[in-house]
């Protein structure tokens, strides 16, 4: 079936005129009709728009034009990225009716490629969460076990690629929101270096950490999408002007001479033993292929979550001040005075986790507490970043588990926010340091759930990360496994 294929395989078929982009959209939508009722990865489907965009791509292919490598490829977009004329909710009630008057820079770039948007995907409200259960609209189910969460916050974007209801997708990663769901859904997910991709039009959560990145079925597609979305942008002063290489040049099936560091601090008692085993097996594969694998130390790893849950909520409390019921979104219409209108609008429009983080962040920035919390966390961030700087003096790439556990059951951690926060223990350290990181499938636990290998590089060293990921993928079969979702919703 066409929907099962990768973007690069589909490009060959489109270029050779074996298929049309419209047929491809129809194939993806047939798959959506069959399994989306069970997976619930999408908040909005845009089939008419997709068919229009596919039609445009087909005209180019029919005329024999030189078409970009992603022309006509169906992509799903996390509902935190502004899409002109298409509702963008951030999975929040407060933005239920928001229709952006502009496209995010990444959308403009995807349009330049001639890509086809399938729809907008579910997420934790304002990207705050690790399970996608904080969506105000629906629960997304993991295609490998419909009773399990897909991870978060980009759970919808991970699930739709895993379920073949999109060929690829975009998500956003603040503390692991691309890498963790990619691991839990058995797909490839990458957070580029902070500053690689413009955040213009990405609804802000924590501005010093947020970064957009791709979910794909393999590492080649990941490189193609990075080529499409990276680059500095005058609309985002934090996007960085270092040259963007052709990332497909990093798809080299060879790791000889590369040094891979395995940080001992990631292998604690909190790490699931089966996951530790799969990751060790993965690094042994890379060693067998000629890489040097050595232990490294990142001594401040254990402080990453505490640091994250100060910095991210502090930035969020400022960023989410804009939702006041005046310019867009939900408003409680009754109050006679402005302050009461703000308070009721925000209290009714935001979900519990968002309110918890606004409270935490406002507290951490409030008079008398700023030095003890926010500044302390910024200093801890320096220590975490210095650990990585020292490690990358010795090694090219760092390999770790992406998530300490496989996908957990829906509802299992919702009662205990702190327990949920600890889901991000393997991904937040690299976020603090702004590093590029990829999660690639590296096996399965006994119960059949996928395991992700996280590969991290120094800032702007995406090429090394991709090379190691590609070599691992070319020499293993894990990424070829697909969940068997029956149309009755039973995973067989």
């Amino acid at each position, binding site marked *: 079936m066409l929907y099962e294929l990768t973007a690069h395989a589909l490009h060959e078929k489109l270029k050779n005129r074996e298929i049309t982009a419209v047929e491809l959209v129809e194939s993806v939508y047939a798959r959506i009709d069959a399994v989306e009722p069970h997976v619930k990865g999408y908040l909005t489907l845009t089939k008419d728009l997709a068919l229009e965009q596919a039609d445009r791509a087909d005209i180019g292919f029919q005329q024999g034009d030189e078409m970009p490598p992603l022309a006509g490829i169906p992509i799903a977009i996390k509902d935190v990225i502004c899409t002109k004329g298409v509702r963008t909710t951030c999975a929040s009630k407060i933005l239920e009716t928001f229709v952006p*008057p502009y496209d995010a820079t990444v959308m403009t770039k995807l349009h330049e490629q001639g890509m086809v948007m399938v729809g907008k995907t579910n997420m934790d409200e304002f990207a705050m969460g690790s399970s996608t259960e904080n969506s105000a609209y629906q629960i997304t189910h993991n295609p490998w076990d419909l009773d399990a969460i897909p991870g978060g916050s980009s759970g919808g974007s991970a699930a739709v690629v895993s379920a073949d209801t999109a060929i690829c997708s975009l998500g956003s990663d603040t503390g692991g929101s691309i890498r963790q769901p990619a691991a839990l859904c058995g797909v490839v997910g990458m957070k580029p270096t902070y500053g690689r991709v413009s955040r213009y039009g990405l609804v802000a959560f924590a501005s010093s950490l947020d970064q957009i990145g791709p979910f794909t079925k393999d590492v080649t597609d990941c490189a193609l999408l990075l080529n499409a979305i990276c680059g500095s942008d005058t609309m985002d002063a934090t996007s960085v002007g270092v040259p963007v290489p052709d990332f497909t040049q990093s798809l080299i099936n060879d790791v000889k001479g590369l040094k891979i560091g395995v940080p001992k601090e990631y292998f604690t008692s909190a790490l699931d033993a089966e996951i530790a085993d799969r990751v060790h097996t993965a690094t042994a594969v890379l060693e067998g292929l000629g890489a040097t694998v050595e232990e490294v130390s990142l001594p401040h790893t254990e402080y990453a979550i505490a640091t994250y849950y*100060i910095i991210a909520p502090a930035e969020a409390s400022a960023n989410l001040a804009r939702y006041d019921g005046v310019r867009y979104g939900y408003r409680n219409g009754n109050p006679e005075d402005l302050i009461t209108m703000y308070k009721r609008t925000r209290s009714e429009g935001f979900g519990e986790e968002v309110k918890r983080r606004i*409270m935490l962040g406002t507290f951490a920035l*409030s008079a008398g*507490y700023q030095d003890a919390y926010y500044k302390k966390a910024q*200093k801890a961030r320096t220590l975490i*970043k210095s650990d990585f700087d020292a490690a990358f003096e010795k090694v090219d790439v760092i390999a770790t588990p992406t998530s300490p556990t496989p996908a957990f059951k829906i509802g299992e951690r919702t009662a205990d926010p702190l327990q949920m926060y600890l889901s991000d223990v393997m991904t937040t350290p690299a976020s603090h340091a702004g590093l590029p990181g990829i999660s690639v499938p590296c096996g399965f636990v006994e119960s059949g759930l996928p395991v992700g290998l996280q590969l991290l590089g120094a800032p702007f060293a995406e090429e090394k990360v991709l090379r190691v990921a590609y070599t691992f993928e070319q020499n293993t079969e894990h990424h070829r496994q697909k969940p068997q979702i029956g149309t009755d919703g039973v995973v067989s």
Partner: protein
Amino acid sequence: MATITTEGVRHVANLARLEFNDEETEHFTEQLTRILDYIGKLNELETDDVPPTSHIHPNQVFIMGSQTGAAHVAKPDVVKSSYPREEVLANAPEAEEGYFGVPRVVDRSH
């Protein structure tokens, strides 16, 4: 590090323009206390001589996509039109005569 009381939660809620009933206030007090206890872990770190990190590319600043090493980010001051007024107002919960509508801010009697 300090802990947080129900009174503190009410104060912070007001700063954040949120309002909670008594039950919610209790609930948030309990949860925030637990989270702040965990965050107290950061006190184990000696940080007197450690500079804070607010941004990961502090010395890498760029102008118009080219690396200059300059201290500020700037772009050419080009005059261009903004979004059409009606498009911007289309998302507003209340709009009137080309403006956003809000509850009365200034008392008419003064």
